Every structure is written in C-alpha cells, then in structure tokens.
C-alpha cells in the first residue's frame, strides 16, 4: 500500500508487479509485503504493470474503465525538494512533518505550516462565488465533524451527520403552536448578539441547524440509488453526500465541496488486517458512489479524490509501520483522465541504496520524499472546478514555486 505505496493509504496500491522492482519492494517491506499472487494487476500505458492491494477490486475495475487515476507520491512541500536539501538547515520545509495533528491541518489548508485558518476547498469556493449566487444551501459540507478544508474567508464550512436532518425532539410537542413557540424563542436566542465572542460562536452553530433542518427534511427519503451503499462508516458518509448532491437542482447550487473521512490507518501494529479492512470499505463505498453519479448522468460533474496526512514508512516496525511523508492518492470521476499513474512513482530499488539515489526517499526507513506537491494536486482540481490562473495563485500561494501547475489528470 501503500505499501508500496508506502504507507498506507489508499493503495497498496501500486506495487510494481514484477522484476527487480517487486523484489526490492518485497525485501524492504519484509513481513508486510504482499505476495504477487494477491496483487490486483493494473497497467499504466507507459510505466507498465502495477499491483493494487487485494482489498481494492472495485477500484481496479474503475481504473481499467478509465474512470480512476492514481497520483503517485504527493505530499506537502514548500518548493521542489531533493534529498540533499533535507540536510541544508536554511532550506524551507513544511513544518512539523510526521505529526498527525499538524499534517491533518496542512493537507486541508494547503499551506506549508499550521498557521492557516482557511482551507483550500473553502478558498476555491470563495473565488467561484458567482456560481453559487442563487443558493442559501451550504456549499462546503464536512461529514460528522467540522473540517478546515471547507472554511474560506467567505465560505462557511458546515458539518452534517449521515441521516441526521437536525430535528429537535423538543419541537415535536402538542399543540403545534407550542412547538412553534419553542422554535421561535430558540431562533431569537441564538441570533442575538451577546458581547462574548464564544457565546456568539456557540449560538451560531444552533442557528445554522435551524436553517438547515427544513431543507434536509424536505429532501429526506426521496433519493433512489442504483446500487446500495455498504453499511460502513465511509459508505454512510458517501451515501449522505450522494443524497445531498441529488438535491442540488432544487437548491441552485453551482459549485460544492464535501469532505468525508475515515480514520484507523495509523497502523503502528496489526497493519495487515486493518489495512485490508479499511481499504475494502473505501473501495466498495467509492464504487457505489460512482455508480450513483453515473446513473444520474452527472459523472462528468463530480470528482472524488483522496487526501491524507501522510504515508507510512516502507520499512515495518513489528507488524506495523511508522509515520511517513509522501503518499499515493486516487482521483475518481467521469472527468478524470483515468487508467494512468501520474507523477513520479518512486523507484523501489532506490530505497536499498537511498543515499546514492535520486530523490525518492527521505530517510533509511523508507519515508517517501514527495515528488508532486499538494498544491499542484489541488490546483489541478481547482482549475477543473473553474478557477483561473490568477485565482489559483491566491488559493495556493506556494504554487508559483512549482513549474507544473497542472498535473494533467483532469480533462
């Protein structure tokens, strides 16, 4: 997965399937290496044969249909970074690499340090306001808990739970006038100004619930899916997202971002089972999601992609692995130029003599040194979303440091 993909995340993705590259992978990965027979074969037109983790048969099929692309070894960078730069104390690197809490923030803010207070999803929507001029529905929605990815200077991120239409039981009383009186009073309380910033912030949360609840209730239960979503945490989240997308024609939403997440990939131990279990959930849920978009004729308007805080060390520690840096990701949708691996895929054999190698690894534990920056990844998507070159520079201040502004995986 990232195994080869070092680490974890989505793909064990791509392990070179044959020859010295596979042998190098196998020797580096030790007990965590997947046998060749378990890998699901995919072929990149120029790079040749790779193997996906055996938990991902649905993604294998989507790759083969040209709907899914893989972006190799992407991570947070300030500027293009070579191995020898790491020893130069004056060279700018992202702050707090390998720290979960910080890297979870950086991948969402798109800034190379943790000081940002907005995310690149929210900032992109800030730039594309004209598309959403006619809607009062949230345009940046995180599942289960708030995500800074969705927050812009103008764009407010909101958080929703699958299946929760924000109905307050206290408003279900008899007679209707009493229920209405309670709701009216709460509306008055939570929209008044208190003089304390934290009181106001807490009130604002309930105020948003009061606004959203009727919209969510009016739509509940009216969506028909061509293929059932798996009853998993990630399946539920993607189903709710599909559900909200199905409302969009009523809501005049022009551009929208969603954020859903799945934890548990911090496999310092027990990686073999856990990674399989999590990856198969992701694969099945994405498959159902794409099937819905496709059946509704909007697959070209919807793109799903993955992010993570970091990949993991290629070298195991016990039955797990440690925190890494670069990672492989997948992009799925009708507008994706799929069936290809983008970016520079690390040369497995370079790991064994990494000091002499080019720049694929950051250390002797097999931490991948990213060859594509998060901002290039983000800018490729934001451009497809409608952002101009000038807007991209505002959304991603570090983008100017990189030659390629478009990694090429979007049509």
């Amino acid at each position: 997965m990232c195994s080869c993909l070092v680490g974890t995340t989505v793909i064990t993705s791509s392990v070179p399937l044959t020859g010295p590259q596979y042998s190098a992978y196998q020797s580096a990965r030790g007990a965590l290496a997947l046998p060749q027979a378990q890998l699901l074969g995919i072929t990149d037109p120029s790079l040749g044969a790779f193997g996906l983790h055996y938990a991902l048969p649905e993604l294998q099929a989507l790759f083969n249909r040209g709907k899914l692309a893989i972006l190799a070894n992407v991570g947070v960078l300030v500027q293009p970074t070579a191995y020898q730069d790491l020893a130069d104390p004056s060279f700018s690197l992202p702050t707090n690499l390998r720290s979960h809490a910080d890297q979870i923030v950086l991948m969402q803010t798109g800034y190379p340090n943790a000081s940002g207070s907005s995310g690149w999803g929210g900032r992109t929507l800030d730039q594309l306001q004209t598309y959403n001029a006619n809607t009062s529905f949230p345009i940046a929605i995180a599942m289960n808990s708030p995500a800074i990815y969705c927050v812009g200077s103008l764009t407010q991120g909101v958080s929703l739970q699958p299946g929760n239409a924000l109905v307050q039981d206290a408003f279900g009383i008899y007679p209707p006038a009493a229920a209405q009186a309670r709701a009216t009073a709460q509306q008055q309380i939570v929209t008044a100004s208190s003089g304390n910033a934290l009181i106001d912030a807490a009130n604002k949360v309930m105020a948003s619930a009061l606004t959203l609840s009727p919209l969510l209730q009016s739509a509940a239960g009216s969506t028909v899916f061509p293929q059932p979503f798996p009853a998993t945490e990630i399946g539920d989240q993607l189903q709710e997202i599909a559900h909200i997308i199905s409302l969009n024609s009523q809501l005049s939403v022009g551009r929208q971002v969603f954020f859903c997440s799945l934890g548990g990939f911090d496999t310092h131990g027990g990686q073999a089972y856990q990674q399989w279990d999590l990856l198969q959930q992701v694969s099945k849920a994405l498959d159902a999601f794409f099937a819905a978009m496709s059946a509704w004729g909007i697959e070209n308007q919807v793109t799903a992609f993955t992010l993570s805080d970091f990949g993991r060390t290629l070298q195991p520690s016990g039955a797990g692995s440690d925190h890494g840096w670069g990672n492989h990701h997948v992009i799925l949708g009708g507008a994706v130029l799929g069936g290809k691996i983008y970016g520079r895929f690390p040369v497995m054999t370079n790991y064994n003599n990494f000091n002499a190698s080019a720049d694929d690894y950051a250390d002797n534990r097999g931490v991948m040194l990213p060859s594509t920056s998060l901002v290039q990844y983000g800018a490729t998507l934001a451009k497809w979303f409608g952002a101009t070159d000038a807007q991209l520079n505002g959304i991603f201040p570090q983008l100017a440091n990189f030659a390629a502004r478009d990694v090429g995986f979007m049509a």
Partner: protein
Amino acid sequence: MYLQVVTRLVVLVLTLLTANTVAAATVTVTLDPAASVTVPVNGVRQFTAKVMGTTNTAVKWSLTPPAGVKRNAIGAIDVTGKYTAPPTPLPGFASATVTAASVAKRAVRARNTITVRYATPTLSSLTPTALSLGTFTLTVTGGNFVSGAQILWNGQALSTNFVSSSQLAAKGTATQGGAASITIANPGPGAVSTPLTLNVTSSLAVVVSPSSVSLMPSGMQQFQVTVTGSSNTGVTWGVVGSPGAGTITNTGLYTAPASPPVGGTVTVYAIAMADGVTQGSVSIAIQDPQAITYGRFLEQTTFGPTPALLAHAKQVGMSAFIHEQFATPESSWPSLATASRADAVDAFVANAFSGQDQLRQRLVGALSEIFVVAMNKNTNGDEIVPWLQVLSRNAFGNYRTLLREITLDASMGKYLDLANSGVAGGAANENYPREMMQLFTLGLSQLNLDGSVQTDGSGNPLPTYTQTDVQQLAKALTGWTYSNATGTTGSGGNYNYYPGPMIPVPGRHNTSAKILLGQGLPAGQTAQQDLDSAIDIIFNHPNLGSFVATRLIRALVTSNPSPAYIKRIAQVFNGNGGQVRGDMQAVIEAIVLDPEARNDAPPSNFARLRTPLQHTLAIARALNLDPGPASQFAYLFYNMNEGILDAPSVFGHYSPLFHIPKSSLFGPEFQIYAASDAVNRANFFYSLIYNPWPINPALQPFVNVAANASALVTAIDTTLLYGRMLPQTRTAILGALPAMYDNNQRVLTALYLTFMSGEYLVQH
C-alpha cells in the same frame, strides 16, 4: 427525483486520515427514534434500526416489560419494528423497552423505551359558561375521559370528580377576574385537551406595584396597592412560603430572607378585604451577590456547582476550598479483576457527577484529553482502568511522577505500542516517544515563557525536536514489556497484562549511547537508567511549564488566556516562587486563583465551550437530576463526537490547534460542536428532563413556581446562570411560555431553551 443534466460541478473530497483510531470494524446498532417515545393506547409507532460495521444489516426486534408487568399487557412489535400499543397504559405508566439486536452480532443491540398514554381527551362545552368571583362548581362535557382525569384551570388542577367518559365536575374558587383557560388532562403522559375559555366576571381588581423587583438578601421593599371597583380599598398582605421566603408587614413593607430561597424568587400578594378573594401579586427575585463569583469559581474547579457546594464554597472561601479538595480522598475505581467496559464508563462519569473529590475528577478529565488512551484500541475494562488510576493518583502530585508512571503504564503501553518495543527485534517503535514529546510535554515549537512561539529570522517557528530526537528517544525507551502475576519476564517479553506497570526485559534494551534534545545518554545504561535520563531531559525542558500551563488553563478556565496569564502559571510550574518544579497543586491553585480567572467581568474572548459530558454534568448537578449509569447512554455521546473514554485518536476528542471557524480565537471544544452535534446534545438533554413523563421529578421546585412565568425564568436563571441571563434570552423564553398547555411544559420549555443557549453552553 433524479437529477437532470446540470451545468455545475461538484468536487468531493474523501479523506483518509492516518490518525490513530484503531478499531474500524466495530458493529453498531442505532435506533430511530433514538429518544424515548410515547404512544397512545392502541396506537402504532414504526421503529427503524441502522446497523453499521457489517454487511448483514438485519436485526431481531423484541419487547421487554418493566418489572412486575405481564408480557401480554405491553403491546407487540412485529418483525419490521412496528409497535402496536395495548388498549390500556401500563400500570404506573411504566415504560416497556424495545430492543433491536444485530443478527450478525447478537450482543450488539440498541434500546429505546415506550410509554403508553391514554387517548387525548376532547372538550366540547362548559357549564356554566361564565362565573363570578368566589367558589364555583364547574361541569365539563367532552370525550375520552378516564377515571382520574382532571380539569385544569390555567394549567393548575382543580379537585375533580369523574362522572363518565364524557363528563367531569370540579369545585374551586375564582380569585381574579378575566379569562381562564380550561383544559382536561387524563392521568399520565401527554394527554391534554385543547382549551376552552371561561370568563370570570368581577368589578374588583387589585394591582400591586412595582410589578418587578430584584432584591439582595435581607433587602427591603415598600409595595403599593391599588384596589378598584369597591369603596373598601383595604387589603391583606402575604408572602407565599413565608417565613423562609421573607416577611411582609400589614402596610406592604417586604423584608427579604437572609439567604436566597430555592429557585431565587418569592411571591408577594395582596387580597382585597372587599370580597376576601380578589388578589394581586408580584414576583421578587432575591439576588445572591456572591453567586456569580462562586458559581464561576466552581465551574472552573468542579463539574459544576450544586446548591450545597455553592453555599459551602462561599462559607469557607476559595483558597480553603481548594486545599480541602486536595485533601479529599480519591473516589474509587473499579477492580481490575472484574472491570468491564461499562464499569469503566460508569465510574468515570459517576465520579465526576457525585464524587466528593470534584477538583481531582475535573483534573482526571483534563488529563485524559492530554495523556489519551481510548477504548477503541484498549477494548476491555481492565485495559482502561489502570490509566484512569494513574491520572487520578497523580492529579495532585508532581508532573514528573505522572509522566514516568504514564510511560510505564500498561494501558498506555498497549495504546501507543511502547510495550515490547524492540523486544522482538525490528526498529524501536516511535509512536509513544513521538507523542510523549509532542502531546504530553513539549509540543512542536519552542515556546517563550508566555506560550508564544519562538521563531527564526524569517518568522518560522523553531522546532522543539527533530525526527532524530524521536528515534533516539525510541531507542532509549526500548526493552519494556507487560508485567505478569510474578512480576518477571524472560527475554521474549510477556503477553498483555494490566495490573501494575511494565517491567524491563533482560537483554532487550538498546544500550547504545543516545543524544536526546542535545543531551547525551551514555552507552551501557539499563532500561530504567535510560528512562530516567530521558524523563529528566524532557521534564527539565524550558517548554514544559508553558505547555502544561496552556493546556490546563484551556481545560479549566478559558480557551484564550493572555500571554501574561500563561507566563504567571509557567513560572509557578518552573518553581520560580520557591515551589518544587512540576508541583501540580501549586499550578492548579495558581490557575484558578489568578486574577484573570477571577475577573467576574471578563473580556469578550474569555470563555470555553463545555464538552457534551461537562454540559450534561453541569445540568445534572445544578438540578440534582441523576442521569443514571453512563453506560446506558454512552452510545449517544458518540453522536456528539465525545465517545466516553473513547477518543478517536491520541489527539483526544478535539485538537488544541482548533480555532473557532472564521476567527482567530482558539476554541478547541468547538471542533465537536457542529450543527449535528448541537441537535444531538439538545435531544439528549430534552430526554433527561421529560423522562419519566411528563417531567423528571427532580424539577418539581420549578413546576411549583411555573404558574408565574417571570418567577420560573428567574428561578432557572438563578440556578444555572447565577442571575446573568441576558435580557434578550429572558424575553425570548417569556415569549414562548404562554403557548404551553401546562406548568410542566412551561418548565421543560424554559429549561431546554436555557440549556442550549450560548451563554450556558460556554463557561464564562
């Protein structure tokens, strides 16, 4: 509805966090509706169950009677979850329990309770249709009346006789002219008719002024009275609940009691001598001048004031209260030999709710968000209790001792993988060493004493440690394994065992020389020697004082302390005043007695959001409303993003880096307060106060004053907000109360709106 072709694009992000959650395949069952439901006799209610974490989403439905009730008296549930109520309510309106058990995993089930109520009475006519002042007999006709039904006069029950299912009669005394609202209530939950109006004719009126008064204890107020409609303008004065509610002279001079009465309000009345019936009244709020001061103090040092604790703290003073708390014996924790997950959850919440060692429990809560262990990885009770014991035992000790004990704690050894690191070969595990420096002691950036980040010439933060330091610390901490019954191990280490700290494995410690944070650990040291060297280096690092000060201030007092406040506390931690470095008692006392904490008129950025559990316990303690064993409602806390003893990752339930959206202010707990969290909290609190239907008996003192809307709101303000309720909140609640059909509903309304107001959600 399917979508048409659209001209819009949607991006969707799927994020895979590698954060430390471990158990992914847990099967869960949730019920809709999740809160208790009430169904009329012969009525039908559909339940649905949602199964997650398995592909087999089937459930088996069952219905359980309460103690002493026969199975054939509780109705039935079919295989689809459709419940049909019996023809009569259960004895005592006891609730039946509906259970949905996962077919894939029978032990996983969700429950809800069903209360069966009588059909709602109808009201068609009143005889007579109008009354004069004085005693009367009222006959009502309608339908669905059952024995025990009551006629309600403006929500207050009259002494009622049951005549038939279509007729009731009652006697009473009309004391005021004007329109009265008459409704009929069958016994039990939720069966009140629509109202009819009965006019009481009177030419007499009594008006007392001023109409709204607020007094200090022992304060005095002269009231005036105006009697119209009679030449006899004499009145008789009285106080409801006197003498505990104060006294009034025969000329209308009121003297408040020396200490505020329960609920904080009293009612003064004047009865016209002309008829001995007609009266006017006014509600008086008795302010407690120290309520705000001590209420705020107890919010910071306990899980919320109870009336008794408020009185006690005022009596002994703040410093003495803290020292009393330092000396209070620790609440007990479950025995490791028998502890289940539920036992651990129950004890954690019960200690916080009712433990006498409130300050220690508050620290256990705060420390549990710093030194995180969680049940998603430590799945059994005995794997979680030792961690709680370490936090509890060391809450008032020294930070170095706490750090050493938590490092060797077997629960933590499992959670962050230090147990058996390096024992079976392979690289030293970096998980605990990294989090030990990042989350437990130093943080990522070098700090000034006031908590601000030190930067280089270009303004970039200076890192506290490097990846090399993590690796070096990992080597220094190799060679520890679980203990066993005899406290011994061979070179292969031991299997999981949680009583007692971890022990060193002979020959499995990495004995090479290490350099940690610029200081050397010589080659050849034992596992214990390297541990103590490493802990000394970290404990004496200049970041530690500011780090601990910032974390604990945020946990207890405010999310946005001033740099000067952090600095004062860091200096205490560092022992600058002659204390021992790391003395937790000195640090805690300094935090809560600091002028910034004690400023009762704080600046607008001063506050912290209560977590769902803190919010629940503050309500429960203030209202003396026992929520019962937490394991019974713990599943609801996952929907509020605060799984009890079960943080999703080593970062706890929320990140210390979290800012309030679109603000530069810190608000860590806001990370788990989104719209859905807010509604889930609200629904949980609502179920606490309306169960058992129609209202939790703990709320009777509020019901007693609820006929007077202003008195009710004042009582709630006094109890929950120490008299600080904002005027707009008060106005909004008062606006809602007239629409309620009885006093119980008024109390539920006023409490619910207060619970979910921003001013009660945040500690300020």
